[in-house]
């Protein structure tokens, strides 16, 4: 089993979908600093994708500093630094949009949505996942 959640959708480049899923898993704490990341082979077999695509996704994640390639160990999750909050917000764009659309469809007020978001935020706020603001 892969250490992060992903459901590949048709119609979007696979590399992009993997990069997004991994970043989300890091932001959400599903992947922690130092966690071992699956190899090209494992990623390709688990997702039934071309090894080239798996390789590209891992390379992109290393390039963006989400993963680090360490000799002998393989690829691991890089320390999650503060300062990439903008990045995180961008990542969540689609999710936020979906939330807003659903809320409007259901006729929920903006304040109620914000309150619900705050409540969930509170629930997930554990010390090792909190951003350090400097």
């Amino acid at each position, binding site marked *: 089993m892969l250490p992060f959640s992903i459901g590949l959708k048709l119609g979007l480049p696979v590399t992009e979908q993997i990069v997004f899923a991994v970043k989300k898993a890091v932001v959400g704490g599903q992947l922690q600093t130092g966690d071992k990341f699956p190899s090209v082979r494992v990623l390709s077999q688990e997702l039934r994708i071309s090894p*080239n695509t798996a390789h590209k996704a891992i390379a992109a994640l290393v390039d963006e500093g989400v993963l680090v390639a360490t000799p002998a160990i393989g690829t691991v999750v890089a320390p999650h630094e503060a300062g990439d909050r903008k990045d995180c917000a961008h990542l969540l764009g689609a999710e936020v949009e979906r939330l807003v659309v659903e809320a409007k469809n259901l006729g929920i007020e903006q304040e109620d949505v914000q309150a619900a978001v705050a409540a969930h935020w509170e629930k997930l706020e554990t010390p090792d996942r909190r951003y350090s603001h400097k």
Partner: protein
Amino acid sequence: MNAIEINNLTRRYGRTDALVDLSLTVHTGSIFALLGPNGAGKTTTIKILMNLIPPTSGRATVLGVESTRIGPKERAQIGYVSENQTLPLWMSVRQLLDYCRPFYPSWDRNLETTLLKQFNLPRGMLMKVALMSALSYRPKLLVLDEPFSGLDPLVRDDFVQGILEASDLGNWTVFISSHDIDEIERLADHVGVIDGGRTKLNESSESLLMRFRRIEVNLQGQTPLLEEMPTNWLAVDRASERVIFIDSRYSEYTADSPYQRYFPDAVVTSHPMTLREIFLTLFRSDRKTSVGIRL
């Protein structure tokens, strides 16, 4: 060196042109999908590549060797599985593998064992055994002609997993013709589409998925300039309040999209398309308006 190079290949059967001036390049290390409707020339292409039939004109090279010169030595590096393959049905799976093994110096018994375990015979047995005997000698090039046809989703999944099990990054090329576009969309790095024996598309799956978008325009009461719409807008469909079309150049717009110009105050949304939808668009819009389409 490219794994496969096809240059201006033509093949006639009597008066029928099966292939007309077909050119395609398959990079070493890629998974290349050859797509096209029935009768597009997929099997003819593969038969020429495997030197089962000669071309009428043009040429193709496979692993650097002219297709017409492919013999036992080259075949030991090529794994070929076709839906029409005949297997000696009187043999058991073990007997067949015992029979095949000595022909290939590169036969990998560990891989054979892994595949045997993974393949969960006898479900979808014939195709799996054919694939197993083609994978176990770790060919540099795997050629699959309609490998998924008639297989249930479970077997298809086993099949894909088996292919990937034998993968060897960078040094291993797969050429696969299939109708199973959904399966292919994830698997293939590169897509070649042929129609009537001619090349229609030849590009990476990623760029293809980025390039095509279904565009929905909510007119908000405006009248658009529909007469002079770009020719790369396909399958334009218009209702009173909405215009829907397929834009085949979506990824090329850098700053300003041309939608602003055509529909100044309308609400425009773009939706990604699956490979299947792109494929259908290509063939449907082509049949309606046979000229002037720029892909």
